[in-house]
């Protein structure tokens, strides 16, 4: 037994052991990862994409404004008690989209309502019964005297957070525009010593501690002011949403140059219980297929077939471990990608064994036949898999475009699967086979799927 084979065997067993340890049982937390991450189509949930109407926004600040809009939506969704929403701002060909993934949401209508609301923050005061009502004042706009509610609309865009130079107290500095200064003067005079809360829709903003953010008015505020007593995180968040809330950024979609508010560009909702159902069905189906495949390999290729099955077991465990630890989101098309990559993994083994059989029939010794089989099969395995990689890269690009987000999972899993299959076929299968042949436990050619009569005499 060659020493290098022993080292390889130890490496493979260690890898296999680690993979098994990390995935059994699947829902145990390993290295901070708990269970497999399932996509919307398996776990249930909603995916929404809206376009932003940024006509009122200066294009140079669009990125910042969208960031603020994202913050506002995050707050609203968190207020609904939805766990782990994923919100992304995408810039596609000059159009800003906001993509929202809500895992396992039952009440999608409520979530949509929250998302579709405007981003302007309103200030509210307590009325005589202790209920928060809009803090109003009067101001002259375009020569007319109006009753207006103090809101983030009247803030200048330069709200910022600083620390007091000596006490290190967190300070949120803001400036008001003309109308805002008039309103704030009246309201702060009236509410001296009383709290002023900040509302997004009908939800009060809450700090990290879960308390409503309602600073007490301590001085008359006109064109500039400051808020103290906030935690650093709360102050930064408030500054972000105030800046974003200066202008309405309606979310909806564009149709022929017209903006339709509140209608998503793209929406997908999958029922959670039925997602569960399709998981079980698909896994059962894949399981049946894989068992058939293994039986076929052993019946047709005998001992090498058994080696291939062991090699595929390593392949399966390592792949599952990658899915869990990276983590890679598993979707139904991803599952199909796994099946196709499994086919390729089997293919690599089949190529090698067919070659080996040929060499055995040609009269070579077992050891020589195995080595030649591997070397000759390698060019075919390499060349054929590279074309699959090309397809995967292109699919991955296609999947990045909006309507086809399901495609990405397939491409990614197929790519990883095929890359791993090249490793298992070449390293794992070869090492196992070398060890069995080298140990001379099985020398009967029948065990290698070759009928003895067909073996030609060596020249």
């Amino acid at each position, binding site marked *: 037994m060659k020493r290098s084979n022993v080292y390889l065997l130890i490496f493979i067993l260690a890898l296999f052991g680690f993979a098994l340890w990390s995935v059994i049982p699947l829902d145990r937390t390993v290295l901070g990862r708990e269970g497999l991450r399932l996509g919307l189509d398996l776990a249930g949930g909603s995916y929404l994409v809206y376009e932003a109407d940024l006509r009122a926004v200066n294009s140079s600040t669009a990125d910042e404004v969208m960031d603020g809009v994202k913050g506002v939506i995050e707050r609203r969704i968190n207020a609904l008690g939805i766990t782990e929403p994923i919100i992304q701002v995408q810039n*596609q060909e000059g159009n800003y989209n906001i993509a929202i993934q809500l895992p396992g949401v039952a009440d999608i209508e409520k979530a949509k309502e929250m998302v579709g609301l405007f981003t302007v923050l309103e200030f509210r005061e307590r009325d005589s019964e202790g209920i928060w009502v809009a803090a109003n004042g009067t101001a002259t706009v375009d020569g007319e005297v109006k009753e207006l509610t103090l809101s983030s609309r009247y803030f200048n865009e330069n709200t910022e957070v600083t620390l007091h130079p000596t006490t290190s107290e967190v300070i949120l500095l803001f400036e008001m525009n003309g109308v805002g200064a008039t309103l704030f003067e009246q309201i702060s005079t009236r509410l001296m010593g009383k709290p002023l809360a900040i509302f997004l829709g009908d939800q009060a903003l809450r700090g990290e501690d879960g308390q409503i953010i309602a600073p007490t008015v301590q001085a008359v505020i006109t064109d500039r002011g400051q808020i103290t007593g906030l935690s650093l995180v709360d102050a930064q968040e408030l500054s972000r949403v105030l800046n974003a809330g200066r202008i309405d950024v309606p979310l909806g979609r564009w149709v022929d140059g017209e903006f339709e508010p509140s209608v998503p560009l793209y929406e997908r909702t*999958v029922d959670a219980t039925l997602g569960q159902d399709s998981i079980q069905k698909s896994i059962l189906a894949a399981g049946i297929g894989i068992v*058939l495949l293994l039986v076929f390999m052993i019946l047709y290729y005998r001992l090498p077939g058994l080696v291939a099955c062991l090699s595929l077991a390593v392949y399966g465990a390592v792949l599952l471990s990658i899915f869990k630890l990276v983590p890679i989101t598993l979707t139904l098309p991803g599952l199909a990608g796994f099946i196709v990559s499994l086919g390729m993994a089997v293919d690599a083994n089949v*190529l090698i064994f067919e070659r080996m059989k040929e060499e055995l029939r040609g009269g070579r010794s077992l050891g020589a036949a195995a080595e030649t089989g591997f070397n000759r099969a390698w060019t075919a395995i390499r060349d054929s898999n590279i074309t699959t990689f090309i*397809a995967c890269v292109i699919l991955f690009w296609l999947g990045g475009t909006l309507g086809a987000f399901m495609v990405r999972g397939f491409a990614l899993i197929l790519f990883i699967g095929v890359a791993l299959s090249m490793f298992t076929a070449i390293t794992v299968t070869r090492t196992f086979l070398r060890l069995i042949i080298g140990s001379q436990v099985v020398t009967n050619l029948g065990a290698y799927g070759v009928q003895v009569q067909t073996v030609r005499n060596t020249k």
Partner: protein
Amino acid sequence: MMDFVGKKQWFFLVSWILIIVGIVSLIVSQVQIKSPLRLGTDFAGGTSIILQFNPPVEQSQLREEMAGLGYVEATIQNAGEGNFIIHTREITAEEARELAGQLGTELDSQVEITDYYFVSGTVATRTTRNAIVAVIIAAVAMMFYIVWAFRRMPKPFRWGSCAVIAVIHNVFIIVGIFSLLGWLAGVEIDALFITGLLAVVGYSINNTVVVFDRIRENVSRHISPDFAETVNASLIDTLGRCINTALTTLFVLLALLLFGGATIHYFVLVLLLGVIIGTYSSICIAGQLLVVWEKGEWRALLPFNKRIG
């Protein structure tokens, strides 16, 4: 010894028949439903819902009820086990629930919406364009790769072309079959169809490269002075591998088609067809094209050649 190369005209004839049926279907489809393929939600926009009926109902019953409720234009696909994929105009989730409720009452069956999917027309246009670009880039990139992989052979461009022609042939046949399913059974193509198609392109090229690799090896070993004989010997060498690989993949795909979920039903069908046709084309078409080109027997390609029979 089996003679795959000698029977090439028969294989070409079979392929021509499949392709011509496909083209006829594309034309009929264009006339019947104003599109060569029935476009799904990803490409045409609108709303698509998956309804699960328990107990299962008949597709014809469902179509009648849908028409009665004012959804005359809706496409209904059967996805097995009482699941139906319905593609219709833009409706909200609320309206979809209402529709499902009415269908349940009328058809006396428990009904649930397992999947609600809505795409705006503007996204659909973009997706269509990107899908077409993806398929073209894939074909060109793979051709360049094969030309590069076979650069040491005389005339590498020929090998690349033959592999790509074989793959385009496969794509044509699958598109033809889905066109047929489109106007006959209401089956739509979506983003997953394109995914399946590109996966099939990868798989077919993979298969063809294995065969070509063997031809390359046998040419350099000079096993026969005749190129046709060399190709035939290579086809026989790789036959076992091609069939076994296809079989093992088919086991799993078939299980997934029969018992997997409704969402990927037709996606798995594309893969299944792709594996079968991809295997056929690498055994019966790709190598034979090389021989035709080498010997200049262009007339062998014609579908109705006097020399047949």
